[in-house]
């Protein structure tokens, strides 16, 4: 399940954009979105998902439960 950003909560501060190890986060209309194809939930990079850890507004970067969980390459 990749992470997604609740746009109504996003302040557009861009903190997540620079922390994302997969360059999966980009600006769209003043707020930020996560490309689900690129998001690896920071698996293999960091202990915790960087977008969640740096986001100033709680519950703004959340798991997108409608999508399958990220599978690390074998």
């Amino acid at each position, binding site marked *: 399940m990749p992470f997604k950003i609740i746009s109504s909560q996003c*302040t557009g*501060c861009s*903190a997540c*954009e620079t922390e994302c190890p997969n360059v999966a986060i980009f600006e769209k209309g003043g707020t930020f979105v996560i490309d689900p194809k690129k998001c690896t939930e920071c698996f293999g990079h*960091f202990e*915790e998902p960087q977008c969640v*850890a740096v986001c*100033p507004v709680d519950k703004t970067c959340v798991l997108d439960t409608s999508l399958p969980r990220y599978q690390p390459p074998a």
Partner: protein
Amino acid sequence: MLAVEPKSCGISVGAGKARCRAHGGQGDLPPAIWDKVKKHPCYSVEAHHHYARMHVAVAPACNMQCNYCNRKYDCANESRPGVTSEKLTPEEAAKKVLAVASRIPQMTVLGIAGPGDPLANPDKTFRTFELVAKAASDIKLCLSTNGLALPDHVDTIARLNIEHVTITINMIDPEIGAKIYPWIFYNHKRYSGLEAAKILTKRQLKGLEMLSARGILCKINSVMIPGINDRHLVEVNKAVNSRGAFLHNIMPLIAASEHGTVFGLQGQRVPRTSELKALQDACEGEMNMMRHCRQCRADAVGLLGEDRCAEFTKEKIVTMTVNYDPEARKAYQAGIEEERRARRGPRHEEVGEHADGTSDIKVLIAVATKGTGLINQHFGHAKEFQVYEVSRSGAKFVGHRRVDHYCQGGHGAPDHLAAIIRSINDCHAVFVARIGGRPMSELNKAGIEPVDQYAHEFIETSAIAWFTSYLEKVQNGQVQHVDRGDGAIRQDPMMSVA
């Protein structure tokens, strides 16, 4: 009083009161330091009457959360740190700087102060400074940071010739820090509580030491939070002083429920002006204290206290032609320096023989001024009063009180008058260029003497002349001196309006 010399930064200006006075004029500051502060409105109390600064909001990301900050805030009518109406790219910011510099020739300082942390946005921050340095080399660069990432960027700061850095340090005791900072983001991890505060204070003090060692002037901002760090800030003052900080700016917490901050929602009270002044006085023996801070916006433009950010919005900048002329700016600033030199003489007279040699009376006076060192504003037009403490040793600027001005569209507003009187009722007198009959009688009723006999004269000399005659009246029994320093009698409109 501890006579702690700043170590390793090469600033040797002596300790104690002599040093406190130094940032008014050159005082005993070494020429190299004076050169760095004489045109910086935040670092020199005298310069803020003459020179302007601007902030560009290129740094919206932050690496920590403070309980006095709400990252969602965005309002054109509020003047306080962290607030901005627009975020700029480095290129847009550089254009804005040139547009402002060509229209406000006394703008000498560009600061980057958020709305997030400039060093949590190092690429945007340093790119902006590089662009500005290339296009307008006469503008001083400074930045304001929470200090968490500071040690990693000291070399870049030095390389880009950023001469002034402000670090916000609210504690050196992690137990206290845990009450101010819910979390930090450091080394790709979120830390909270005591652990977060320990990392933060270590990084802040290390960053300060590194900057001092390179001769970069550091101002420390501390937010005074009653019941949390108010007493502790004396310890903070000693800690930063011993690490070479140049100036300490203890400012009042801004907290109201409508701001949506943790402190605002918790109903955390803000300090009274009397409490703030007492704390600043307690720290003054150690180092320079800043008392003219206006707690400005992340996109403020112009003289301190006279924000012109609305004239330079992103929309307006796009259509502005930029005619940046360094020679014209230089000539204009030379004129300012000429005026300052001419004015310096009469401003520093001491109290004359009439003052009783044993009197330890100290009074506060409020002054209606347009910020030029003169008493030159009508009472009803004043949006703020400058407050001076006057005693045998002279007149000293100790702060300002913002108010809603009394004359609204040609009519006096009675509610505003009452609020103005409350805001200055620890003062014995209010000095004005002119004043109407109604406010004059209301002030007299409140025991504040309206003084208009020094209209358009220098503040310090007038204050001393008035004080000398006040002491005479006390001596010959004409006046009974009453100490008006009781903060409890005042309702605090410190942050009432932008």
